[in-house]
Structures are given as structure tokens and as C-alpha cells.
């Protein structure tokens, strides 16, 4: 048996209390294209960051060419010949192509003078070896995403990388660019480069890879030879995780139709796909939880933002609330119409860090706590208190700063903030992100309880078991389109994952 070029042995990584990786072990053989698959949060990116020296503290052993290594930075990894092409490209847009390729190791002549000529010359050679004719003196920012990605690959080649990690490289490419990337990959492989390829697009993985490793919940699940497996087996391995048995009691009976969306589309200028959302239609009834499943970038957040009038561009299509056409162009209008949105990114878009718990809760309903022109502190406190007790928020009164609460309790504060506006429809964007297990269950009960009061709830989540526990119906998005809708009785993790990984250009 050949010696593995990279051997990952019992690698674990914790972030605070959450486990990102647990005892992951597998080998990568020289010259192979090894695909790594897994759901959002399976630990793919964390593992690749360890491999490329971005994360430096972890447990376990990493062997390169049979020798143990422990990188203390990306430079170490680069000197071992490992480079990573991130999903979010890391180019300095204001610099030329050549300057980007040689960033941090600029060539120089005598003394300190930069040798732009020979850098451009070498950059041109590298790019030609990739069969592309980007002029090396162009500004990186003026290039299309696909070209920028090639610059990153050229940079990796200039570092003499033997092992290239690619993190979802096709997510922003046009079909023609994907074809070109495939050619570049074939060329790299003919030169003997080993490639670790992260993707959740099954067609790509099966087209390119020799072997596939599946991660789930930070654990190694299996490695399969691509020729001996099928897409549905890999999907099953990705999702086959236990559903926490959590009894939330009987589901609520469905009430009247409260929200209807017809053919909602949102453009995406400058992107290969051209749209963020395309022809989405959905219905929501009172007392019902509609789950929205989809992988990263499927358009879950964008859909909720459109409904809430928070999208930068105006969507097309119709939104009907209680049978009335609404066109919210500002969250204030959506709020007035009876919509409420709890955002995904709690730190950045949800909490007011400079304020205390009480003021965070009352923020959206201060108009109800006024006495003449004056804000009545006692009425405001009553409002906030009503939510602290209704949602059982664990806090020492209303005066501690919001940042001193746990993630789950901060989230409850924001839910409470919106409940005070008496909404008809509550939109929850990944409400349990960064919330620990016990608090999750409590949030589920809160959400169910709200439904029984006649609220319609839309929940997105990156965790399928959560959607299966919580929802009455589940709608699946993939690349901005609705690919399936299931009643809860017919929904399974496999079916959802299959619909979520469906790509439209195949």
C-alpha cells in the first residue's frame, strides 16, 4: 500500500463548549482527488483550517508524508506544500494579479526595490500553465470571480503546493467557468497534485473524485471509493444522524391561511446565476410551523428578508398577508403589517450590545409605553417583564447588559421583542444557532406554544433534525429555487437532503 501523503489521526477540536471535530481519522493518498462531504456544520471547514495552518490548537496528530507536523501558521503549511483556496477568496482587489500572486513574498532586486517586471513575467508563466490568459498587470478587483479563483490557484502553484484544498470552489461560477475549472483540475492532477475537494454538490463530487469521505457532526463517518458508491448512499451517510427524541406534545390544528407568497424572485446582479431567489411560492396557515431547509447559500435568509422588506433590491412577485397584498420596502412597514423577523446573525443584526436586557426587549414596542411625549419607564419595564416571565428568560432582572446572557436567553429576548408587537407571522432565521442543547429544546417549546396561540411561524434551520422536530411542513430550497415541499409525515432527512443538493444546471 502506498504511503498516504496526509494522514489525519484522532483529531478533535472544541470551540468553547461546542464540539467541532471529534476523533476524526482518515488518510489522503498521493495524487488522488479526495472529496469531503457533509452538512452545514459537519466540521469540514474546521478540519481544512487545521490542515492549512489557520487553526493551530487542536488535539490529535497530523502526518504529512508519514512525518508528524504541527503547523503554527499558514506559512508552515505552505512550506509543507499545502495551500487552501477559500470559498471567500482572499485577494487584495486594488492590487494587480501579479502583486496578488506574490503578496507577502515580493521579489526584489538590489536593495529594497520591488521587481515588478519579473513578478509579472513569472505570473504570466504560471497563468499560462493553467491555460488562461489573464494579463498579470490587471487589477484583481476588475476580474470575474472565476478568474479570481484561478489567481488563487496560480498563487498556490507559485508556492509549489503539492496538496491543494478547495472549499466549495464552484459555488459562484458560471457553467463555462466550471468547465474551465474542471480542466485546470485535470491538469493539476496530471502534474501529480493531490486535491482535497469540499462540496455538497453530488454531481460534481462524482464527476471529479476518486474517493469520498463523509463527516457528520464533527465525526468521521466513512470513506468510499467513488466508483463503488452512489449519490444516494453518500446523502444517507451525510444525514444519518440521530434525532433527539423530544416530545413537544401534539401538533396544533391548522387554522386559516395567513400568509401567501406567489412567484417571489430576487435578482442577483453580477452573479453567474443572475438570481438569489426564483419563483418561490408558499402558503402559511395560522398555528402552523413551516420549516425551510436548504444548505448554505440556498436563499433561506434572503427569502425571509424579502418578506420582511429588508432586502437591498426589491423582489418581484406577490406577498399576501391575510389576503391583502403587501409590498414592504422597509422593516417598519412589515412590522406594521404584522410581520416579525428574528435574524440569523444575532450579534450583528439582533442585539443592541450597549443596552440592557429590558431595553433590548422593549425596543420594537416603545410606542406602547408612552405617557404623552414621554417614555414611561414603568410601563416599559412592565412590557419587558411580561416577556421575561412568558418566555422564562433567565436573567437577574432587566438591568444586566444583554451580553451577559447566554446565547439562548439572548435569542429569547429578541423573540420577546417581536412578540410585543403582536405579529401575525413570526419569521425565525436559524433561531438556535449558537444555542446549547438544553436551551434549544426550550426554544422549541416556546415556538410551539406561540403557534397554539394562533401565530403562523416560518423557521429556517441548518439542522435537519431540528426542522423535523419543529415543523408541520418543510419546504426545501436549493440554489435559490424551491425544489420540494413535504408534509411532516412524509419528510425524511434523506429526502430533504436529496432535494437540497439538487442543482439546476444538471
Amino acid at each position: 500500500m502506498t504511503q498516504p501523503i496526509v494522514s489525519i489521526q484522532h483529531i478533535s477540536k472544541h470551540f468553547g463548549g461546542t464540539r467541532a471535530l471529534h476523533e476524526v481519522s482518515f488518510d489522503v493518498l498521493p495524487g488522488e482527488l479526495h472529496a469531503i462531504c457533509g452538512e452545514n456544520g459537519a466540521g469540514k471547514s474546521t478540519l481544512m483550517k487545521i490542515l492549512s495552518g489557520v487553526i493551530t490548537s487542536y488535539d490529535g496528530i497530523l502526518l504529512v508524508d508519514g512525518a508528524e507536523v504541527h503547523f503554527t501558521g499558514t506559512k508552515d503549511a505552505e512550506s509543507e506544500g499545502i495551500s487552501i483556496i477559500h470559498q471567500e477568496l482572499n485577494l487584495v482587489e486594488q492590487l494587480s494579479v501579479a502583486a496578488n500572486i506574490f503578496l507577502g513574498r515580493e521579489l526584489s532586486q538590489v536593495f529594497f526595490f520591488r521587481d515588478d517586471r519579473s513578478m509579472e513575467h513569472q505570473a504570466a508563466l504560471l497563468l499560462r500553465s493553467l491555460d488562461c490568459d489573464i494579463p498579470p498587470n490587471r487589477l484583481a478587483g476588475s476580474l470575474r470571480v472565476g478568474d479570481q479563483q484561478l489567481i488563487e490557484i496560480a498563487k498556490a502553484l507559485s508556492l509549489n503546493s503539492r496538496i491543494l484544498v478547495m472549499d466549495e470552489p464552484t459555488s459562484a461560477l458560471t457553467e463555462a467557468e466550471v468547465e474551465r475549472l474542471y480542466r485546470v483540475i485535470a491538469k493539476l492532477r496530471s502534474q501529480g497534485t493531490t486535491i482535497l475537494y469540499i462540496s455538497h454538490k453530488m454531481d460534481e463530487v462524482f464527476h471529479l473524485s476518486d474517493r469520498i469521505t463523509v463527516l457528520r457532526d464533527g465525526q468521521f463517518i466513512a470513506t468510499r471509493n467513488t466508483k463503488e458508491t452512489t449519490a444516494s448512499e453518500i446523502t444517507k451517510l451525510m444525514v444519518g444522524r440521530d434525532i433527539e427524541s423530544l416530545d413537544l406534545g401534539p401538533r396544533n390544528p391548522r387554522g386559516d391561511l395567513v400568509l401567501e407568497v406567489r412567484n417571489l424572485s430576487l435578482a442577483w446582479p453580477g452573479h453567474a446565476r443572475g438570481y438569489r431567489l426564483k419563483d418561490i411560492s408558499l402558503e402559511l396557515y395560522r398555528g402552523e410551523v413551516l420549516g425551510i431547509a436548504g444548505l448554505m447559500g440556498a436563499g433561506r435568509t434572503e427569502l425571509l428578508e424579502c418578506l420582511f422588506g429588508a432586502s437591498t433590491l426589491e423582489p418581484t412577485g406577490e406577498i399576501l398577508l391575510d389576503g391583502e397584498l403587501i409590498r414592504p420596502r422597509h422593516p417598519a412597514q412589515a412590522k406594521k403589517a404584522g410581520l416579525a423577523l428574528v435574524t440569523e446573525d444575532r450579534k450583528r443584526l439582533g442585539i443592541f450590545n450597549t443596552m440592557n436586557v429590558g431595553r433590548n426587549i422593549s425596543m420594537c414596542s416603545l410606542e406602547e409605553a408612552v405617557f404623552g411625549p414621554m417614555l414611561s419607564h414603568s410601563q416599559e419595564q412592565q412590557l419587558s417583564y411580561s416577556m421575561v416571565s412568558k418566555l422564562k428568560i433567565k436573567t437577574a432582572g432587566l438591568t444586566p447588559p444583554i451580553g451577559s446572557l447566554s446565547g439562548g436567553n439572548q435569542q429569547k429576548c429578541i423573540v420577546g421583542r417581536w412578540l410585543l408587537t403582536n405579529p401575525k407571522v413570526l419569521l425565525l432565521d436559524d433561531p438556535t444557532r449558537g444555542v446549547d442543547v438544553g436551551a434549544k429544546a426550550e426554544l422549541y417549546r416556546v415556538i410551539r406554544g406561540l403557534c397554539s396561540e394562533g401565530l403562523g411561524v416560518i423557521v429556517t434551520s441548518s439542522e435537519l433534525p431540528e426542522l423535523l422536530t419543529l415543523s408541520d411542513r418543510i419546504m426545501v430550497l436549493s440554489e435559490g429555487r424551491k425544489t420540494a415541499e413535504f408534509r411532516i409525515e412524509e419528510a425524511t432527512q434523506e429526502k430533504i437532503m436529496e432535494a437540497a443538493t439538487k442543482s439546476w444546471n444538471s
Partner: protein
Amino acid sequence: MSLLRRLWSSVEFKLIVAWLLVVLATMALDTNYAYWNNPADSAQLILRRTVLLGFFAIGSAIIIISGGIDLSSGSVIAMSATVFGSLMMILDPVGFKAGHVSTTAVILSIGGTLLVGGMVGTLHAWLITSVGLPPFVATLATLVGLRSFSRGLTSSITMGKSQIDFPDTGLRDVLKNVTYMSIVFVVFALLMWFLMSRTVTGRHLQAMGGNEQAAKLSGIRTDRLKWLAYVIGAVSASIVGIISFADDGSAKPDIMARGYELNAIAASVIGGCSLQGGVGTIPGTILGCLFLRTIIDAVQKIVGSGADVYEGMIVGIVVVVAVTFSQRGGGKLAGKKYFSNGIGWSVIPTLGLLAGLSYLLFFGKREWYAPYQAYMIGGIVVAALAARAFLESNSKASGQS
């Protein structure tokens, strides 16, 4: 107990203590004993200056609390003074020449000037919200633009002169009267304090300053709030422009209120406003103004004549010290490393020079001054900082083991 601790840890309380210390130090060090001999005059002087700074510092503070910045207040003051003068000249040309402007014209001119202030604020809000300029750029443009505009206005309305003289001595005495000025200020300050701490709008302004995205997603109309903040900022500067015109006796738009915007920002920051937005109070800002004006006055008293030259130096030093100590954990001088790296070592000569030269500048004209003292002060500072740097470098080694 906890109430006492909260009081003690508040910026306002610390400022009052610091202010008392400055006053006591001045009483002790001032060789003319102005605070002893002439308490009323000294108090009046400080009050007048505090009030004049206070108006537009409050405006500036509201903008800072709401997450913006206003660099234009100095120019708006100069512009308002010239606009006020021009309006009186246009509305009552005869009275203007005769030295007795009619009351109607005065009232209309004041109203018109405040309206122009509101227009400048609206312009700022439009540049920031609709055009999408950063507040720094938008108000930098009006900082240079409005001063130039005022000079043009002055020149064209006075047929080529570079200043407008205040026409009416009676009116001037009313406008520069410290009692009237203070009453208007108290009313204005109370209104603004009420707005910021007792109304929904004030809470929304704070929320917008703390997290603009979250505020918008909470259904808060952030664009309207920005309009309000910048209008308050510009109108408060216009009030100062009107009073300063009377106080100075003339409006010289090329030099009037030059650089005052930084004093307003400094007073806000000293008073506890965070330049990141979301944090700050009106009482804190007023105390910040009082502290800043008092310490400037103190240095003038101690150093003697011509000390307004050092105003900028004092403001600079006070801002650096105030912000350093108000940073979280920055109050602990012992734990923090200031001089342990290359930059730290290289700044020591700079600080030594600064100390020595300041001594020379402040006390060079005193009869007891001798050059060796300045060298000694500089030397002592360098030695003390070098010793600290040495200790810091060593504590690093022991701290890691």
C-alpha cells in the same frame, strides 16, 4: 451600596471630582489668586465659555451617540454669524447703518439663521442617507465649503470687506448677556436631555448608534433619525453663531470659530460619549464642556498671558488621557503594557521632549526659570518612562513562565 457604586463609576461623578481637583489646583498655583480675589468674574468667564461650547457640543454629542460625526460645526458657526449679519442688513438697511436694528428684523433674522442651520443639517442628512457618503466625508465637505461660502457672502454683502461689524450695541448687550445666554442654554439642554433620555426617539437614536443594522431590522426609520440628529447638530451651531457674533462684536468668517468642531467632539468624548456610537449622555457632555473650559482657563491663569496658544495642546492631552482611562480596563495603569515593544521605546524621547518643551513654553518667562529646569524635567520623564519600559519588558518574561 450598589447605588453608591454606580454613582462612583459614572462618568459624570468622575468628571465632577476631576473638575474640583482642577479648581483647587488653580486656587493653589495661580500666583495672581484670581479665583480668590475675583470669584464672580472668573466664574462668569468660565460659564460664558462653557455655555458657548455647550450648545454645539450637545448637538455634536447627539450625532456621536447616534453613530455619526459632525466636523462642520465650526464652519456652521461662522456661516450663521455672517448669515445673521447679512439678514439684518438686508431686512433693515437703514437701521443697520444707524446702529439700531428694528426688533422685527432681528427676530426674522434669528429665525432665518436657525432655518439656514436646519437646511445645512438637512443637506448633511441627505448626503449621508441618500447619496451614501460616510458622515466624515459629508461633514468634511461642508467644513471647508461653508467657510468659503461665508467669506464670499461677507465680501459681497459688505462690498468687498472681509468682516461684518455688529450693528447695534443695545442688541449686542442683550445677546452677549451671560444670564440670558445661560437661560437659553438651560432650556436647550433640558429639552435635549429630555429628548435623549425620556422619549422613544431618543432611545431609537441610541439604538441606531449602537447597532444601525439591528435598529433598521427592528423597524426603526434610521434615515429620519439621522436627519433629526444632523439638524439638531447644525441648528445648535447656528445658535452659537448668533451669540458669538454679538460676543465678538464682528463676524470674521475666515478665522471665526476655526477648529471649534474638534472642541465639541473632545467635550463629548470627555463627557463619556463613545465614538463608536450608542453610548453617552447630555449631562455628561455638559460636564465635559465645563471640565474642558475650566482646565483651559486654569492653564491660562497659571501660565499667564497669551496662553490661548496652548488651548489646542491642552485639548489634545485631555482627550488622550480621558479616553485612555475610560477604555475598558484601561484605568489599570499597572497591568497594561505601554512601552514594551519597539514603538513604545521609540516614543519615549518624543514624550521627554514634549515634557521639557512644555515646561519651557509655560514657564520660560518667569523670573525663577532657568534652562537647566527644562532639561531636568525632560530627563526625568525619559528616565521614568525608560524604567517603566524596562519593567514591562521584564514582566513579560516572568509572566509567561
